[in-house]
């Protein structure tokens, strides 16, 4: 499977990474190279094999559904590039 420029543009869009038009051909070529490497996986007979979900067979721990943390608004907002009046601030989302 080779990635064309249109696919590279779409992947960049899905990944929310801006890529200049001029850089798309190189990106497409690089991604194609990596995918070709992955295509070796097609040689493996995986009939009847379940995809691995957890490397050690374990049941995830559960705990009571109660509040364990909170009242740390200041700490949460401390690293925000833009925080106002107790909220994260972002550009206008809805017109």
């Amino acid at each position, binding site marked *: 499977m080779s990635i064309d420029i249109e696919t590279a543009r779409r992947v960049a869009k899905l990944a*929310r990474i801006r890529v200049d038009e001029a850089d798309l051909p190189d990106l497409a070529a690089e991604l194609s190279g990596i995918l070709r490497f992955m295509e070796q996986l097609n040689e493996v007979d995986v009939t009847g094999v*379940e995809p691995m979900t957890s490397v*050690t067979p374990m049941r995830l*721990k559960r705990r009571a559904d109660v509040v364990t943390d909170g009242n740390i608004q200041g700490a*949460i907002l401390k*690293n925000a590039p833009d925080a106002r009046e107790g909220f994260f601030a972002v550009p206008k989302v809805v017109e």
Partner: protein
Amino acid sequence: MSAAANTLTVAAARDALRKRALSAVDLTMACLTAMDAGDSLNAFAHKTPELALAQARAADARLAAGAAPDLCGIPLGIKDLFCTRGVASQAASNILRGFRPEYESTVTSQLFAAGAVMLGKLNMDEFAMGSSNETSCYGNAVNPWRRAGDDAALTPGGSSGGSASAVAADLCLAATGTDTGGSIRQPAAFAGIVGIKPTYGRVSRWGIIAFASSLDQAGPMTKTVRDAALLLGTMAGHDPKDSTSADLPVPDFEAALTGDIRCKTIGIPREYRMDGMPAEIEALWASGTAMLKDAGARIVDISLPHTKYALPAYYVIAPAEASSNLARYDGVRYGHRAKLAQGDGITEMYEKTRAEGFGKEVQRRVMIGTYVLSAGFYDAYYNRARKVRALIKRDFDLAFAAGVDAILTPATPSSAFGLGEMADADPVEMYLNDVFTVTVNLAGLPGIAVPVGLDAKGLPLGLQLIGRPWQEADLLNHAYVLERAAGFVAKAPKWW
């Protein structure tokens, strides 16, 4: 103390501190001096001397009161991937520039509770994606080792390159690393030190900036196997904040170092004998095998038939998980936000922020991950890779079920290469550095790199031992036998 205190092992420093032959403050000062003198190695990205001295003074008080833990007063370097409260923690990425966590990772909490001292944060590949420390936003970390008669700068490996460089150059007594595909073991081998990646779930991942959550594990990078046992004992343990951390008791790893491996069975996997493998690596592997045999172990040839597919499976699974984990860097809650133009909306903010904040390799992996998870390709790539992963793990399960206690392999396909030497290489060529280590992450097993010899260029070479799940104690004992038999004591001649 006759030798400079910063050159001590953790175990020797512990003993000297407990006898009060050395104070934690003096030891820390010696490391801070070495750290400042080692700036040309670019191993430390953020230095924390005030914190280190405060911690050292507290350690001295505790040592004076008696019964202090093993790591009380021991100066460490901490990989930049660990969140440390109030101290820059940016995974060597511009997207986390200025980020100072309001919380402490479980691993560093446990180290500090035991009295360890943090000298600073260590250089690494951006988001731990790389095998040469060349993707770091801080610039390359440099290996203290050089080829004989050549002063070209070599890579300390990656992603824990700063950790390897700092430990090998005696800037700290030991360091933390993390390993997703070989990021502890490959740099340890390149720098002539010990590095262990524990069983997946042995060490809490909480507060460690995530790369690929099903593969990431933290572990120690140290001068000796005994030091690795000491650090791992403090770093490990169940943590309710990491649902994948195992609720198992942590054994006394140091006590497991008996040096007796008689009647143990060591597997030598034939698939690790790669085409084009340098003769020196082959010879090193054979001599390591002979050392374990001389120690009384039984050597058996084994087959791990899916080895060849580990790298391609890894380079589907790890980027897939990374694309999901790194979605959080959007310019809203922490780190960098791009300057926006008039009329830019939230989508432009995301796209510009991520284009400016992520380096090339990180962008590449996020996009590959996005692609393999996208509609129509999920089954062809991601699900197939997870099936192959199950087969890779089954290979190991079968070997262990047949009575193998540990598996011996080379740690890396070469010794350290020059910084910049791979600049024109295909990304896939760089990925081949992980060929011997990546299977261990996919199977969730513990693996340790031990320095065993020098190549003809005068550079360190390591071997890797792979253990049964949760049997780090036994694995460390095998490594201890190998370490003693190899008698690797070489140090990089000081040029920095």
